[in-house]
């Protein structure tokens, strides 16, 4: 099912909404990448629990921060219909295709 009639190019605001959706999709990928990185560190060469702990928690905070920014951008707080903003942006999501 392809979406017919949708615009090919979007206005700046809708365009950034789309990019925020992309960011929301990519965020867990980034997180997963950051969280498996310590596996590459050799345990003997200074990779102590403390170091890894600091690293993981730092990544965690970073991820939370990014998630916060993305979720804020996805639902503009200044919009008059803030609660409905989520559903308003839903229709721009590309529908999944039938297999």
């Amino acid at each position, binding site marked *: *099912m392809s979406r017919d009639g949708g615009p090919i190019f979007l206005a700046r605001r809708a365009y950034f909404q789309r990019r925020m*959706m992309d960011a*929301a*999709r990519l*965020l*867990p*990928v980034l*997180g*997963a990448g950051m*969280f*498996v990185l*310590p*596996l590459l*560190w050799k*345990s003997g060469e200074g*990779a*102590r*629990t*403390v*170091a*890894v*702990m600091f690293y*993981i*928690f730092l990544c*965690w*905070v970073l*991820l*939370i*921060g990014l*998630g*916060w920014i993305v*979720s804020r951008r*996805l*639902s503009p707080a200044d919009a008059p219909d*803030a*609660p409905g*903003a*989520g*559903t308003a942006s*839903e*229709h721009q*999501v590309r*529908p*999944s295709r*039938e*297999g």
Partner: protein
Amino acid sequence: MGALNVIVLVSLLYVALLFCVAFAADRAAARGRGTWLRSPIVYTLSLSIYCTAWTFYGAVGFAARSGLEYLTIYLGPTLVMVGWWWTLRKMVRVGRSQRITSIADLISSRFGKSNALAVFVTVLAVIGTTPYIALQLQSVTISFAAFAAADPTHTGEISETATALWVAVGLVVFTILFGTRNLDANERHHGLVMAIALEAVVKLCALLAVGIFVVWGLAGGVDETLARIDQSAIARWDVPGSRWVGLTLLSAAAFMCLPRMFQVMVVENEDEGHLRTASWAFPTYVMLMSLFVVPIAAVGLDLSPAGANPDLFVLTLPLENGQEGLAVLSFLGGFSSATSMVIVAAIALSTMVSNHVVMPVWLWMSGGSAVISGDVRQVAIRARRLSIGVILFLGYLYFRVSGGGTALAAIGLISFVGVAQFLPALLGGLFWRGANRRGALAGLSVGFAVWMYSLFLPSFGASAVMPQAVLDEGLMGLSWLRPQALFWAAGMDPVVHAFMWSLSLNIVVFVVVSLVSFPQPVERLQGAQFVNVFEHSATSGGWTGGLAQSEDLMIMAQRIMGAKEAQALFAEAAREQGVGGYLPEPTPDFLSRLERSLAGSVGAATAHAMISQIVGGASVSVQDLMAVADETAQIMEYSSQLEMKTEEQARTARQLRQVNEKLTQISVQKDAFLSQISHELRTPMTSIRAFSEILRDGGDMPEAEQRRYASIIHDEAIRLTRLLDDLLDLSVLENAQIVLSLEDGELGPLLDRAAVAAGLTDGGMVMHRDAEADRVRLHTDTDRLAQVFINLMSNARKYCDAEAPRLDIRVAERNGTLVVDFIDNGSGIPTDQQGTIFEKFARVSETKAGGAGLGLAICREIMARLGGGIEYLPGQDGGAFRVYLPMAEGAAAQAAQ
């Protein structure tokens, strides 16, 4: 007063507070106040039931045993929450649009509202969750025991089983009170959610407080704490990669599949926008929950006596260091973790059990009629309450049987792997329209069996359920069937091993069976609804209400939803249909709406079955839908046939119109012809009559005069004969009655003959011919062709008005066609008459006497009979006619030379 008494008192007070909060929240919600009840923060906090007592106590124990590995349990859910845009958003949307009541309901609803699947998921969920509930009971009892051990005034041995029993009973009461107030499981349990949110705050505060106390109170600061970690047994980072990745994936999968998580995340969800906040707020919560775990573990390992249970460091560290208040807070944190998990899990499971097991059985036992039997509402609520009791009792039983010996985290992970089996069906159902019921059932069965065999049964300990021989040598001595080394995959961690194999096989079977089997119509309908939920959050259709009795439906709905709600629903539907009163027409729209409303109370599968009982006997189901679909297809086919017929009729009408026009024309032509012919016949007849009368009455008339008159009569008679001959000729030609006498001949002599007959040789007109080109062989009716040539030549002779009349005859061959042009140097035929000259009685001018205007008409007919044609050739500086006819094969070859 001893610490134990304090703890009992504080627990009771705390529970009383929870009761009050829940009660107040319920009241506020009932009065429509308290928008803060629906805030995203409350939603986020309610998600924290993910952090159970296992997390609260067990994480420290986990960390004390294997370092940072405990983090995987939080990293998985963090990734899922941060990636909410992928899955959770869709899950929540589907849950809301389909009024899903549990994960079993979601899976069954997606796969054709199959109750078999719902029952299967329910059973699996109960088996997977029971140990988890036992775990919570255990954590509360051991924390009680820890207090008892530290209480010098308490001498007697505390009975762990009694504690567990009392806690279980208390939880049953609380859950029933606040979890089954309304039947519609899809309605929000505001009181309950509020109480859980409060508990979430308490457990976070408790853990943070203990952490701060340990770091700054016991260890003496951050640097000292880090130093202690470096000196402890967990100083080295040596987590196996498979476990790190495997457990992260496992916890991520479990986070989506756990019945209790589904309950708070999807069923209790108030607003999809809340997910937005929870996407970063929940990771923050779990991050804070895990922040102090390693310091507590390290300091606990350092300070506690050898052999102390690291699971209880959170409690024993403050207790042993004289911080009773902190210990009580810590106890409350653990208590909160345990109770909130048990309450939500019990609600989720009881909804599943009552909707998918008890209600169908009851429906079946009550003779298959939801109308005649008693109050469904009461039955459903009672079923749910009973289920809560049974589930908690099962948990208690498991606790008694297992003896509470195993480490807390182990049971948690086993449970996780069990519920993770829902993942393929869940995600497949949400994202892949090709996923179908058989695939889901097969995948779940295989995954569940592998989990049972490779993890759950061995977890009871060697020889407890599974003989040691099987563990060591595999089932029936087959080494590749060793439970913890399937397909010789030895050397893996048992949990990761079981997770990997059960989920892989689950996915493979699910996909393969889905690929090769054909889904039923309802499955396909629901599949489209689920997968494309963002395009149309509408309803799933499929009811034909022809036979339905609105009144019966109303009676049934009242029993399930309650009289007031049902009446409101019916009245509204009736109003929308423009019908007065309470009984709307049972349109498909109304029926599917009613079904969804009922699904909120009793689950999609049961609601579907109940309506089908009333709407069309018990047989309205997939087959009926199929019939409906067939009917629709037939109607569509019929209408397309109609359309075709309409088109055909239009075509016929057009043809008829054309024929009619032609007939009218012909009629006009006929009239014209008749008047023309009578005129043509009359003119010679008139002169014949006149001159013959003169001859008769003339008496003595000079002979010369008589001869002149007689010759005029003769001429006119000849003219009349010629006219009649022409007419006869034309009519014969037009009716295709002539017989052509085909013969071989050459064009040159034919033209010579025609020129002689047309009188061109008498010197009046110069004729130009190319003798070379004229030598073309013909195979045709030469007499008829000569007739055409004569006609054209005599026309040229008669009508060419040039001073030195001249006729060019050009012969050419084009594409197997012989073309003969007759071009004179006269003034030709005016453009406006060129179209009509081949018609009968058409004459260019009346001034010049001649034939009756039939010559060219006859020529046209002749040429058509000969397979060629004749046309006027404009633009040649004079009258020009072109005659063409197909060449004989031999002639064509000759011409080509």
